[in-house]
């Protein structure tokens, strides 16, 4: 059958690859465009100048090396949180608790950072990261174990544990781990030692590189290891997983722990790379953004990265937008919602750009709710 010459086949394959790549990015691109257009309409309605607003937004996000750095800094925890939520989705778990796991990771990394003195940076920083991640994993273990052993639904328990995490960290920052520097009345931990700080490589935060790495590792685990095969099997059909000899309980707990680990790492990176300490109120909302990002990225670890960059850029640029164009930052939320809408409702976009697509990449989290 294959009578084509080899070179012909290569061309064909390249063409097919390019077409596939275009199919992959065309919908998100058009969705972003539509998001910006609808945002512009709202801006016009409210009497603002869309072009100058977007100009400032873009400048604030990418205009200078420092701006780019801020975008990357914003994107970093979002990647971690997005990965955490996406990873759990793959196991059929809806982890609304990334926020709590992230907080715990952040405060514990701070503790490791300020309480241990004299370690070389090469050990101290990774140690704090690791322990922060593990703390998140431990916090993720709770809903996982509750689900397997008592049947308590993870959506409830993770929501509850978010509140508890806020309280725990607030208490620690205002109590036993409070910064006792004379004159300080603020609830916060002491500054971490320089050896625990994650530096920036030029304008690129180390944390961002770690986040990219985490995405690769998460993807690799999910799609290239037997563990990932088990996780996805449990997520898609837990009866078949059981039939195949997979220990569903173990996988559920482990998935929640890996998810928690990723979120905890996100918190630790925040502490060590940006804040330099834990302070209540400094890590707000990231876990919930993680849900948005996981969904924008179609629960694919690699999809999470552009999604987080998009959100990070809007967050980074919005103060410039307010400064230069007087536009309130909330408009970026509206734009985000519209983009998410069009990414998910890809029928609309595909009709717009006359693309005949397969249903393969349609986001469905059918097991994300009722679970097992």
């Amino acid at each position: 059958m294959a009578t084509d010459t080899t070179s012909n086949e290569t061309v064909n394959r390249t063409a097919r690859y390019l077409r596939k790549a275009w199919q992959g990015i065309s919908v998100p691109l058009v969705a972003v465009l539509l998001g910006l257009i609808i945002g512009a309409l709202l801006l016009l309605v409210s009497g603002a100048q869309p072009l100058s607003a977007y100009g400032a937004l873009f400048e604030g996000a990418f205009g200078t090396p420092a701006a780019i750095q801020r975008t990357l800094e914003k994107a970093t925890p979002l990647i971690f949180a997005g990965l955490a939520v996406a990873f759990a989705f793959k196991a059929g778990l809806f982890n609304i608790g990334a926020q709590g796991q992230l907080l715990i990771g952040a405060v514990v990394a701070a503790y490791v950072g300020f309480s241990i003195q004299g370690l070389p940076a090469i050990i101290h920083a990774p140690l704090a990261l690791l322990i922060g991640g593990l703390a998140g994993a431990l916090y993720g273990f709770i809903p996982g174990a509750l689900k397997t052993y008592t049947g308590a639904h993870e959506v409830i328990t993770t929501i509850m544990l978010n509140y508890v995490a806020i309280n725990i960290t607030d208490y620690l920052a205002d109590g036993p781990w409070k910064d006792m520097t004379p004159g300080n009345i603020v609830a916060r931990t002491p500054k971490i030692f320089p050896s625990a700080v994650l530096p920036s490589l030029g304008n690129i935060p180390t944390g961002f590189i770690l986040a990219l790495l985490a995405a690769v590792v998460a993807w690799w685990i999910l799609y290239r290891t037997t563990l990932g095969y088990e996780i996805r099997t449990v997520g898609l059909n837990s009866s078949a997983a059981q039939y195949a000899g997979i220990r569903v309980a173990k996988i559920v707990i482990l998935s929640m722990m890996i998810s928690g680990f990723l979120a905890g790492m996100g918190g630790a990176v925040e502490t060590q790379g940006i804040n330099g300490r834990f302070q209540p109120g400094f890590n707000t909302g990231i876990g919930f953004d993680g849900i948005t990002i996981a969904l924008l990225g179609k629960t694919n670890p690699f999809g999470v990265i552009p999604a987080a960059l998009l959100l990070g850029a809007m967050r980074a640029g919005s103060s410039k937008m307010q400064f230069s164009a007087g536009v309130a930052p909330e408009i970026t939320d509206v734009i985000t919602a519209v983009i998410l809408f069009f990414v998910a409702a890809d029928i609309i976009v595909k009709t717009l750009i006359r693309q005949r697509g397969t249903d393969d990449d349609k986001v469905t989290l059918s097991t994300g709710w009722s679970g097992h």
Partner: protein
Amino acid sequence: GGQKPAAEKKCGDEGVICIGLVTDVGKIDDKSFNQSSWEGTQQAAKEVGALEVKYVETTDAKDYAANIKQFTDQGYNIIVTIGFGMGEATAEAAAANPKVHFIGVDQFQGEAIPNVAGLVFHEDQAGYLAGVLAASMSQSGVVASVLGTNLVPPVVAFNEGYLNGARSVNPNIKIIDTYHPGGLDVAFTDPEWGATTAQQAIDQGADVIFGAGGNTGNGALIQAAGNEGVWCIGVDTDQWETVPEAHPCLISSAVKLIPPGIVDLVKMSKDGKFPSGNYFGAAGLAPFHDHESAIPQEVKDLLEKTKAGLLDGSISTGYNPG
């Protein structure tokens, strides 16, 4: 927000005054300290003839430094930063921009930095006066306070002052005080909690409610207004202006006068007399407004006496930070 430049001059030029304001996490129109700081800043700008006056709202606490930088990059020479949370970012920005004057609202200065003035207030004193007023007005012998989170020192100061002030009038008074149990991010934006907590206190006999916690406290004030025979006391600014729904019960507010403090400091900056370290703004009670006649003269006298005592140090609020 802000005003357009009038002339060809621009910020950073010799003799040009540009004032920037960075809010704490929250909005410029929070009916609370962000808002009154902005009002004070605008007023100060007018008085010193500033070329530009602008604000940037902080949406993420990690952006404090970046938001300040927006202004220093543009050559702004006076920057108002709001809230104790920004203290650190302000100090760092001050070190990097020694020529810029920073006014840190609510930022207690442990060590003086030459170009930073912490505009701080004796919230405990304002709270003390509110406590005296509350205890004096209470018929039931039960008063309450509905507060933002205890993580925020000024809130604690207000409350401690309030407790001791009330006890100074009636040692046996029953005081119900409650802090919002959620985290920092919701503690000041949960009026529903404020309202229901106030009602729970009222149902147990409280007849004066001190609402101190941004919108959370405002919820308590509005709730109190719906109950016959219950008074309420606002906080930070004169809430007669900001929460009209509370008029039926609002006898006063424990205020810290942020706007005049900012105006003073801006003027001093212009005159080359910018102070460093802590600059205490005035704190006390707002007018009684329509309830003037409802307050007995002896209560008014007592308040005057207490105020004097607090000023000369003969009365201590009992609040001890740290």
